[in-house]
């Protein structure tokens, strides 16, 4: 299969936050690989460290509270964590791009959509070495980008301010910013969580088409397994700062292995209406004092002695299927 250097490789990432009460040990050895043209999902509940993971990749963790205490993040074989600070903006303007949950917070309220999109395009082209483009050209390029996201009347939208747009429109603006030509990897952090389902459906379909057309890789972060099932080829399940399971998306829904994944799948209300499970007992651990061993063991029904002592490494279950659980020691 594909053997070349993966586009993005997160290796054994540890991140801690210093707070008044002590140190929050949030990420506890996260491993993620994204190959070229691959659509990957990252799923987990609130507070499991999904956003912390992509903030580490973009190097926008809040400083000085947050500290990366271990691991590497390779982008095309180069470690982002050891890059010089002046190299980072180039990467973010060039091949990396991100969409966040709240589009209003990621757009500047005092500039028009046209000004913001234009600026991004200008810098992105500068990064490519293209110079001396007229304002008119940039404007028409910006309008093209908006049109591609399915925005009606892009010329008019360019003259508006973000507050004048609806939530769905704002997110379309963010997507068009994120999908400029140079982008190779898109990090989408809950891009449709704030939107209504009919709008969510439109935006996700559009996003999927665009990513497909351009051969962009995407890391889609979501708490919704349904969205991830529709849009991705491979999926990572995250719990309390660790990746507990990864496999091809289809396989995860057919044959989930990790007790957490199984329990999570059961708690999702089904359209077929077969009632709900009891949920998962307990709650996500306190990061000040995470449990010893496997972080899921206090809530796990099949916890064994070893689970309380040692953190399980990823055990392969064949077919690209890895579960970090002592049950699959083999």
């Amino acid at each position: 299969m594909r053997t070349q250097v993966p586009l993005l490789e997160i290796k054994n990432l540890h991140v801690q936050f210093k707070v008044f009460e002590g140190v929050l040990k949030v990420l506890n050895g996260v491993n993620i690989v994204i190959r070229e043209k691959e659509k990957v999902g990252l799923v987990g509940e609130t507070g499991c460290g999904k956003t912390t993971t992509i903030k580490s990749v973009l190097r926008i963790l809040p400083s000085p509270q947050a500290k990366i205490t271990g691991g590497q993040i390779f982008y095309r074989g180069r470690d982002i964590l050891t890059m010089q600070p002046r190299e980072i903006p180039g990467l973010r303007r060039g091949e990396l791009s991100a969409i966040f949950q709240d589009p209003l917070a990621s757009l500047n309220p005092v500039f028009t959509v046209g000004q913001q999109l234009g600026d991004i395009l200008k810098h992105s082209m500068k990064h490519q070495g293209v110079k001396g483009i007229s304002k008119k050209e940039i404007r028409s390029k910006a309008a093209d980008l908006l049109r591609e996201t399915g925005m009606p009347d892009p010329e008019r939208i360019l003259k508006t301010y973000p507050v004048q747009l609806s939530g769905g429109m704002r997110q379309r603006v963010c997507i068009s910013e994120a999908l400029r030509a140079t982008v190779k990897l898109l990090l989408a952090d809950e891009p449709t969580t704030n939107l209504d389902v009919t709008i969510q459906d439109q935006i996700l379909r559009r996003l999927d088409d665009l990513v497909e057309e351009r051969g962009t890789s995407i890391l889609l972060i979501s708490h919704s397994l349904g969205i991830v099932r529709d849009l991705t080829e491979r999926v990572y399940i995250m719990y309390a700062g660790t990746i507990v399971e990864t496999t091809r998306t289809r396989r995860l829904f057919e044959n989930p292995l990790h007790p957490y994944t199984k329990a999570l799948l059961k708690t999702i209300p089904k359209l077929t209406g077969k009632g709900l499970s009891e949920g998962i007992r307990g709650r996500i651990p306190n990061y000040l004092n995470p449990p010893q061993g496997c972080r899921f063991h206090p809530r796990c029904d099949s916890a064994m002695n070893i689970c309380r002592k040692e953190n399980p490494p990823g055990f392969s279950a064949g077919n690209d299927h890895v579960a970090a659980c002592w049950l699959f020691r083999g």
Partner: protein
Amino acid sequence: MTVMNEDILRVKGLVKHFFTRLGTVRAVDNVSFAIRRGETFGLVGESGSGKTTVAHTLVGIYKPTGGEAYFRDQSLGEDFSHRSKALKKNIRIVFQDPGSSLNPRWSIKQILELPLRIHRTSYGKNHVEAVSELLRMVELPPEEYLYKYPQAIGGGEKQMVAIARALATEPDFVALDEPTSALDVSIQAKIIKLLTRLQKKLDLTYLFITHDLSLMRNMANRVAIMYLGKIAEVAPTREFFQKPLHPYTNMLLSSIPVTSDEEEKLKPKQIRSTGEIPSPVNIPPGCSFHLRCPRCMDICSRLDPVMTEKEAGHWVRCHLYPAAGQ
């Protein structure tokens, strides 16, 4: 709609308009339904469809602009400053965000004591036992939670406290306004189970509001779908999901991300989501959905359709299903 003796709550032509600088927001526009005793009546819709305004008006946060609403034989035509204490005791609400609906400066004991002090004065001054009883009812050990403050407990537990507060007055009817939307699915399952158990035990009637259709499928006995302040379709839950009639219901159902092939089969295929929800200040003429409707006809932009009963208990408001004799 058939009005039976067991209807605990009747709403007829309810209207709630808000008058703002930008114009009149027609949040709820001529809504009628009846809720039977002991059932869970579901209200779905996207943001801005007016489902929360309906709940708030019934509970008494707003005074309706027009129409009638009755709880048993008491009118709900006034807001709570003009309602009787008995009525306020009987109709309670659980809000969406437990983080902002619980007073951060009060301990859980204080939060739960207030409704007891007002509505169940028989307890005298010793409320601790009554509050503990309430906490046990929502499956929180009182010795652990009694003196904690809201910020010290998780989102799911806060919502359980909010439920306990609503049930403290021993109500007959509870409006649940998106009680689990702010929570993770694993916590949501717990809360929903708890609500179902309490309903059986205490003989409660629920108005359940959510935008999550999959959750609605598992919770409600009957479902009404709202679009721009009006009800588009009402049906018993099973029928609503298996034989949806209104194009908007179909569009909404086809947009839900699901987690199995079995569910995928239930989603209407022929319809895809288009367009955005118009502003409730500027509602399109005729049928308010016609701009997004894939099966729009000439008549739709001119005439607002009326509710017709297609099958027993299955009502739809769409020109595709004209009333007999029309």
